[in-house]
């Protein structure tokens, strides 16, 4: 019976995970998964012949308060490090359970399979623990974000890993409890050394990988205590976390190996200099932002013309309108390189005239607009023309796109436009930069908007 209830919990995990992958269902997915967890915990509390209620309740209360307190209070911007910290606890818990079980049964009487499982649980769990907290430190600024290490870091870590396997073998063979503690210590160090050489910007990928690890640790613990809930739940998270890790490194246009091992291997290829100061976005980010907006204003510029992106732009607008998003176009009087440049191109794509707003019509609208999408425009949305009396273009009326909730800018780089001056818009907190050729970006945007 208890097994079937565990199975029910596992099914809820599966459904929860699946729903977490889609914006529309993500929140309910989380709820379903948490209910699954509740089922598993209650079943366990009822089923286990608990003799030490005090310990159990104390643990639940202390852990629950810490978890809930931190989760409620932390800033939205510190989410990734919080996930890292939680993940570390999870890894620790798995390792601790395996160790406790080992001690309970007695290190010398344990079966080989259980021993191997314990070694895996301890090893993976502690790596998760220490690795997660290094990641946490890097993101919180407690540790320097830059890669820390030396040429041979990867080799050293390899050696430590081999050592850990040897220690595990020794522990299994001798049944010495000290060997188990040593194993835990060594893998703890391994976690630290493996994450330190990775740059702060790559931490989310690392956390995701460690998340997959904590799943594997839980599964290993499941083998130790012969509990199917742990095996299923752990395997699920281990696999799902791995897929997610690949997707995240893919979204950064990196291979996972490049993220994990590159910094001191020479290949290091991080984002360029001042591009660090902007919020880079991917097509999917932008698609979600647009798809869930109520109103979108498009600001086309010379870059749209250069990319001949007018048809692709029209397709994005159609996809948005099909979702009920209101789309209009704000045309700056000098956008492009000739009077009426944008008009010619938008007319080519048969964008209805009544969706075109000129400067006077659009400026009062920006502050009530969810998203402005700037397609290859630059000077005409440069706030320094409005705010900076020393700017060479000071006095030119601009489109006040920065008054909207979110600005998405599609251009290939941070290069300046016709006037040859930098644009503070790109560095604003509510600006997302999508660096790409306008046509290509808009084409993939259409697909992503349809799928969002």
């Amino acid at each position, binding site marked *: 019976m208890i097994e079937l209830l565990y199975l029910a*919990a*596992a099914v809820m*995990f599966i459904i929860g995970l699946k729903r977490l992958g889609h*914006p*529309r269902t993500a*929140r309910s997915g989380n709820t379903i998964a948490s209910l699954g*967890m509740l089922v598993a*915990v209650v079943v*366990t509390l009822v089923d*286990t*012949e*608990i003799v*030490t209620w005090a*310990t159990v309740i104390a*643990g639940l209360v*202390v*852990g629950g308060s*810490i*978890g*809930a307190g931190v*989760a409620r209070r*932390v800033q939205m911007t510190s*989410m990734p490090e919080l*996930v890292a910290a*939680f*993940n570390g606890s*999870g890894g620790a*818990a798995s390792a*601790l359970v395996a160790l*406790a*079980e080992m001690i*309970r049964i007695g290190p010398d009487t344990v079966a080989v*399979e259980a021993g191997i499982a314990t070694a895996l649980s301890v090893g993976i769990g502690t790596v998760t623990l220490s690795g997660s907290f290094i990641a946490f430190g890097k993101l919180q600024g407690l540790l320097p974000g830059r890669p820390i290490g030396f040429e041979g870091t990867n080799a050293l870590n390899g050696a430590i890993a081999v050592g850990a396997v040897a220690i595990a073998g020794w522990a299994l063979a001798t049944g010495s409890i000290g060997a188990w503690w040593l194993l835990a210590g060594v893998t703890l160090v391994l976690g630290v050394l493996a994450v330190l050489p990775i740059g702060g910007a790559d931490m*989310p990928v690392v*956390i995701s990988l460690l*998340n997959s690890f*904590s799943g594997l640790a*839980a599964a290993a*613990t499941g083998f130790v*205590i012969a509990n*199917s809930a*742990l*095996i*299923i739940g*752990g*395997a*699920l998270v*281990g*696999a*799902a*976390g791995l897929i*997610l890790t690949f997707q*995240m490194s893919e979204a950064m246009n990196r291979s996972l190996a490049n993220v994990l091992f590159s910094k001191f291997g020479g290949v290091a290829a991080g984002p360029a200099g001042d591009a660090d100061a902007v919020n880079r976005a991917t097509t*999917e*980010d932008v*698609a*979600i932002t647009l*798809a*869930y907006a109520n109103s979108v204003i498009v600001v086309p510029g010379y870059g749209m013309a250069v990319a001949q992106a007018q048809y692709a732009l029209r397709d994005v607008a159609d996809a948005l309108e099909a*979702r009920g998003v209101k789309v209009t176009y704000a045309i700056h009087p000098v956008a492009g390189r000739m009077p009426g440049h944008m008009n010619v191109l938008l007319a080519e794509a048969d964008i209805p005239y009544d969706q075109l707003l000129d400067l006077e019509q659009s400026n009062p609208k920006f502050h009530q607009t969810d998203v402005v999408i700037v397609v290859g425009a630059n000077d005409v949305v440069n706030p320094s023309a409005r705010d900076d009396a020393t700017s060479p273009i000071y006095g030119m009326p601009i489109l006040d796109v920065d008054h909207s909730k979110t600005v998405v800018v599609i251009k290939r780089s941070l290069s300046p436009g016709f006037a040859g001056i930098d644009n503070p818009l790109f560095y604003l907190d509510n600006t997302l930069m999508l660096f790409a050729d306008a046509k290509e970006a808009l084409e993939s945007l259409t697909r992503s908007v349809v799928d969002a």
Partner: protein
Amino acid sequence: MSELVITGIVVFVLAAFVGFEVISKVPPTLHTPLMSGANAISGITIVGAITTAGLGSGTVAAVLGFLAITAATINVVGGFLVTDRMLSMFRNRPKAKARDD
């Protein structure tokens, strides 16, 4: 190999397949929430912690058990709550055409 372990392996492999398949292409905005939610699920180890600590044999095991329960509970409770907070931004726009999958 014991029957139990073999069954465990079968279950593990199948669950891993479910895990692989259940994650289709996820929009990057959901990467962190999904990671966080999955991480909370990996707190299932709490079940093991309760079993081990509850059976109570010896001080070391008890301390370890207490620590394990605490750590696992932090992971579970904090994880699900924080995921929910992150996801509160995805409240469905009423105007969008209802399209469920």
